[in-house]
């Protein structure tokens, strides 16, 4: 029984260490400068950092295929950027507070496009 408890604790420790090693700042400077951060769910951000926050230009890649390339402010998608959806659809334009806000073009994977003003992810007719 003692052996089993020791084995479970030891395995947990090894797993935690392995996980800790595979996440966090993997390249460069993730405090102030340019660096690459890997999150526990394999989301990655590679770009500019200011005061430990994503700030400036960068690329955030989600494990499920969403890729945002553009400007960040206070760790949020803010400014001009392009979001690639997993199926190939894209939105290119202005962002604010992590959402499509402002002028932008949404292009579906079949080529169909919608250009105009967007507010919090919704197209304004």
């Amino acid at each position, binding site marked *: 029984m003692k052996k089993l408890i020791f084995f479970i604790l030891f395995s947990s420790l090894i797993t935690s260490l392995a996980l800790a090693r595979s996440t966090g700042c993997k390249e460069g400077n993730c405090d102030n400068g340019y660096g690459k951060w890997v999150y526990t*769910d394999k989301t990655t951000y590679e770009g500019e950092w200011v005061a430990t926050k994503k700030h400036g230009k960068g690329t955030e890649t989600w494990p499920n295929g969403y890729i945002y390339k553009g400007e960040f402010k206070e760790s949020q998608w803010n400014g001009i950027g392009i979001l690639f959806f997993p*199926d*190939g659809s894209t939105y290119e334009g202005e962002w604010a507070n992590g959402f499509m806000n402002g002028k932008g073009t949404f292009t579906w994977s079949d080529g169909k496009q919608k250009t105009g003003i967007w507010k919090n992810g919704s197209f304004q007719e």
Partner: protein
Amino acid sequence: MENKKQVFGKMEVSKNSFKTLSEPVKQFGGLVGIIILIFLTFFVLNNIFGEGDELVAKMKIEEERIAQERKLNKLISSLPSGVLVSFDGTDNFKLSDELYEAVCKATKLIPQRAIMGANFLNFRAHEIYTINGNKIDETFVKWDDEKNKCFAGFVVSGKNVGVDETITVSGEALSFLSTGIDTRVYFIKNF
């Protein structure tokens, strides 16, 4: 009066004839009687408490469901680990129509990033989701026989600026993650 006498007489005769039977025959008769009594008791009890055909039908459905689940699990474990997609233009594993349906029917989980992705096009759902600590009331993955498509979604509810709201976000499930043990919806196309 005369009839009664005749009946009692007949009974007396059969009683006497029973007494004249040999002991093994009597014992056999008793055994048969007990068996019939047991069958009758069960028949009566089953009619009162049992669900009969309904129960059998339910059991058959459950057996079929288990068999189907086993079949799907076998198929899932044979898929390559990684991202499975139902559309062209990526390096990921492309699902055939048949596999797409099977994966859809076997999938139950929707991870956080898929939910966050769907919320890009539904700001109110995003607000409720974040206000309530990323809590999801319900998730669903369904195969639509008419459209031949897989649909997935989730329900978020909670107070948003003091008002109770419930929002269902759903869309076509177009990509899945295969872990080797199970599959998860990776992309909900709700636009």
